[in-house]
């Protein structure tokens, strides 16, 4: 039984890394802009991942966590000099902790124009229920 039936976003930090080795390109990641909405049936998460194509997107769900990793599809071509940078080239990464408040096998994801929309249905057990009174 979990204490909270909600989505808690967390940013991966080197100290919180698990034992598994992270590949070199994932040492530095940036946290994308996101929005969480909740309805009685599901959580709706919108994550802004500009420059990420479908091939570079990984959505993994395991042990109460939903991890979104987006690698950018664009690389600075040779011969281009950067005059001014505001964006980062690092991959996007964000982890949502849900403590099993989400049915992970029914997660639906859609990536369009750099915006990922996730629909995370709640399990029957935590949906509000109307109890008939006899």
């Amino acid at each position: 039984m979990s204490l909270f039936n909600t989505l808690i976003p967390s940013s991966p930090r080197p100290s919180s890394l698990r034992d598994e080795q992270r590949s070199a390109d994932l040492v530095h990641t940036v946290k994308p802009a996101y929005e969480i909405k909740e309805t009685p049936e599901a959580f709706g998460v919108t994550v802004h991942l500009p420059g990420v194509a479908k091939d570079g997107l990984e959505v993994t769900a395991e042990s109460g966590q939903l991890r979104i990793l987006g690698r950018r599809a664009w690389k600075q071509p040779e011969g281009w000099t950067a005059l001014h940078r505001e964006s980062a080239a690092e991959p996007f990464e964000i982890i949502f902790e849900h403590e099993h408040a989400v049915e992970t096998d029914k997660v639906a994801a859609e990536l369009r124009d750099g915006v990922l929309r996730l629909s995370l249905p709640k399990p029957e057990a935590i949906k509000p229920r109307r109890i008939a009174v006899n």
Partner: protein
Amino acid sequence: MNLIRYSYPHYRLASSALPRSPWAGLESEISRLFENVVSDYSAAVPPTRFPVDIYEDKANTYVRAELPGVNRDDINVEVTDGALTIAATRKVPAGHGEGEQSVAINRVLSLGEDVQSDKVAAAYENGVLTVTLPKREQAQPKKIAVAVK
């Protein structure tokens, strides 16, 4: 002297092809680092301002703007009086109990004088807008062969 207009009073203006201070890159890097740290504590709402990168090669100047979730039809790119204006409307689809919301976002960058404003092209892919600004002939480095007799 160039007159510079901008949309974000609190934000350092990206002046494109103009010569820049050697510390400008470091400064923007430091503010970006701070922004990353501070953003953990701020509300995680999709931003209304958008980051812009400027690159150049021999023939063109390129402006890349991160505009995720904007329809192509809602992006306006204009070049007027030596300034590049990127204006976009982000529409958030209607959800539960909420109608469609739209947010207008825009940015103005000053351009150097060596841009061929009639040949500007723009492309939008994966939520990133790339504007290609060709340089004028005389701005491109030219090799002149000198015959030595």
